[in-house]
């Protein structure tokens, strides 16, 4: 685990699936942050060099964390985690 949630809070957990694996994360936590905390640092590969990439600016500018959620390309740093979300990392375009 890389990131550390610093507040032992009483947030409601929701279940998202990442490449078909269920993952319990705090509701409302931005997906990029939730994935980072759960050890999914590599989110995609760059289209030209095929190099691993992960969330970088966490404020909606760099687009590095744009991945497929529920079939749409979204900026995961701006997308709060909700029950039932399906995140695709492997084999995504």
């Amino acid at each position: 685990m890389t990131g550390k949630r610093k507040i032992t809070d009483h947030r409601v957990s929701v279940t998202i699936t990442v490449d078909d694996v269920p993952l319990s994360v705090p509701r409302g936590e931005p997906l990029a942050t939730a994935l980072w905390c759960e050890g999914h640092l590599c989110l995609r590969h760059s289209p030209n060099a095929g190099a691993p990439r992960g969330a970088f600016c966490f404020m909606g500018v760099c687009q590095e964390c744009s991945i497929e959620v529920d079939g749409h390309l979204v900026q995961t740093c701006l997308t709060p985690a909700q029950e039932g979300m399906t995140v695709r990392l492997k084999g995504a375009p």
Partner: protein
Amino acid sequence: MAPTLTDLIVVGAGPAGANAAITACAHGVDVHLFDEAPKAGGQVWRAPVDDLPEGNTPEAHEGSALRDCLAVSGVTVHNGQRVWSTLIKSDGEFQVDSLGPEGPMTVQAPRLVAATGAYERIVPFKGWTLPGVMGLAAATVLLKSHGVVPGERPVIAGAGPLLLAVAAGMLDAGVKPLAIIDLDSRVDWLMRLPALLTRPNLAARGAGWVARVRKAGVPILHRHAVRAVDGHDQMTRVTVSPVDASGAFIEGNDKHFDADALVVGHGLTPGGDIPRLLGARMQHDALRGGYVPQMDVFGRTSINGLFAIGDGAGIRGVDAAVTAGQACGLVVAHEADRLDTIRFEREVAPLRKACNRQNRFSDAIGGAMALRSGQVASVPKSAIVCRCEDVTRGEIEAAGDAGASDVNQLKHFTRTGMGPCQGRMCGEVAASLLAQHLGVERHAVGSFTARPPLRPVAMGELTGSFSYDDIPIPEPAPL
């Protein structure tokens, strides 16, 4: 769809934009305020995500106070709306198009305030694209808004006051950074001290961070910079080297850290997309982080009715942003005949004084974060500069040799700045590399042309759902 008509549109609900909106509205101006975040506050006063408690720092309190003030101000606030287009209509009015939870929106007004804040600038090094490396400002977002520390064994590197702010935030959350790598020497900071002391509250906060970091025994490596990050699918090691005053590496004294995260930032660049898109006259100002609109003390740009304030109009920091926002709100109210000249002059006078006081502080912090020649010269030839399109320094310089003489030609030659971020992450550095290689001043290579959409938007969301049968198709012309 007919646009909503109003007196003033403000884009960006950070300290500058929100204060402009609140001040103008208090004098009877009808204001629509747009922000892409779910809550107002911008980056510096960013609100915690849903269900997390407000923090207990001065910024958290100030942000919370701003949101309370905005809620009762009468300003029409559109949170979570991404402004993707601004244009000037034939009658000189501004049209702003946005997309968000409220669906597509179009608002029109005779005046527009661009308060869109800044982006972080990171000077590339080997391995900076590896997962596990994030911006310094990104770390502040995680700490104050998401309740998360970026790693268990993080290294903090770069320039400016955020280094210590982030280190103190990590320590408060129970994580001890392996090291702080500061481009500046202790003497650099001491020389800035007189200017920093013009803002005693802020200087005291900085001193508090230093004490916190010292007490915890976090090593600070002054006059050092990150040379390389290594790892396979994510980073595992950071290599740092000493640097000279210009930021160029000095060989032979590398140090290594087995880190799980690197938080790195070299200052901020103004996000002046809207003034550029609308054709306002811009100028390069290294101290203010990059291209800024030419404007007067009230933020009036070269385009009638267009204002630019806050860090998006040149990096000056949060206090200056608040003052600029209030002054801009007053001048809008005055121009719109909601505030007579005598009252306007009376209310604006203390803001002018505050502005002069704040400028000295802003200059000192701006100096700490400005891009240095040796930093740019030290970028390895093989390092990726444009992250979106994987363009290296070597390719940028080859384009320069092949005749690319400004950044837009560089874009055509190499695709630098053509990817999803539209050059926001690499623009300043790519331009500086090209200028240095061609042996010309930075301003000679210009800036990327701004084009809509200002933010990536899905065509489907713009068009909404429709049936082809509902689209009116004119009769074909007779053959």
